[in-house]
């Protein structure tokens, strides 16, 4: 009877939700950590090949993409800041800029990948080379790139590919948040969803901060 007299209130623990989200972020971190571990082991056993292969990546493109992601993190922080102050319009514009920057990152990345495809460096296998898809980087007489370089390019595509997938998911999430902000269900009093979307976006940025020097610089 007393339960009927006091209907159960919907309890929402914002701090607990955030802590739970951080736990999820650590599972993402460990997903990438496994890739970084494989990179570290193969780099130590095929150092010369890794250095040679890394020279084929364009440092300028990598640096530009780093600046793009860092800027998108800033606009995300400012967007959440604006929302918490009640400046919905500013928050929406800043979120749109963040989405645009994420899209720019992907466009640049796709051009970079495209150039590698043209050189047949994608998932290079002995079978593909036998079928006449040998890389022009090979010197005549060589059947296949040295195993260390195949490992480097394989890891490059898997790690930047998984990272790009996270950029796509983050972008879709931001579009949904933008829609909910227009509908008014995300607002100054309830900024939680944008806050978690931002945490996710920043983690993707943190991963790139480590990917950039390992693939584009340490040659």
């Amino acid at each position, binding site marked *: 009877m007393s339960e009927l007299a006091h209907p159960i209130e919907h309890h929402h623990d914002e701090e607990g939700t955030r802590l739970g989200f951080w736990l999820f972020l650590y599972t993402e971190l460990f997903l990438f*950590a496994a890739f970084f571990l494989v990179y*570290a082991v193969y780099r*130590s056993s095929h150092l010369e090949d890794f250095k040679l292969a890394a020279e084929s990546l364009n440092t300028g493109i990598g640096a530009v993409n*780093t600046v793009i992601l860092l800027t998108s993190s*800033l606009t995300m922080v400012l967007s959440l800041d604006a929302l918490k102050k009640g400046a919905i319009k500013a928050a929406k514009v800043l979120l749109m800029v963040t989405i645009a920057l994420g899209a720019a990152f992907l466009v640049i990345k796709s051009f970079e990948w495209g150039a590698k495809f043209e050189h047949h460096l994608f998932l290079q296998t002995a079978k593909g080379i036998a079928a006449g898809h040998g890389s022009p980087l090979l010197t005549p007489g060589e059947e296949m790139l040295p195993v260390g370089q195949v490992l480097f390019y394989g890891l490059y595509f898997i790690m930047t590919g998984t990272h790009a997938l996270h950029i796509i998911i983050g972008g879709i999430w931001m579009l949904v948040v933008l829609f909910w902000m227009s509908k008014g269900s995300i607002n100054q009093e309830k900024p939680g969803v944008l806050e978690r979307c931002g945490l996710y976006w920043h983690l993707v*940025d943190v991963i790139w901060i480590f990917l950039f020097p390992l693939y584009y610089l*340490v040659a």
Partner: protein
Amino acid sequence: MNTHEQTQSFRLPILVFAGLIVLTVLTVLLSGLDVGNMGALLIAMSLASIKASLVLYYFMHLNHEPLIFKLFLGVAFLTLLVIFVLTFSDYSFRVIA
């Protein structure tokens, strides 16, 4: 006081961002140094760690979170450290043909 706080909260992320850009430029410039493989790796990873810390602490607002959030980060970091150290305590002593 309120307006002051608002400009403050606006200024800090931009300062952190400027720091991140400076560190990125530094990472690219220092990668040209001839300090050997381990030296280059050490410089690049140290700078990346500082950048990651800035993002975690200021952009992901760990500076405003209670102690438990920082403990979680510490546990995650230590676990990673153990995994990497154990892996290399094996691989470093293997004889690879």
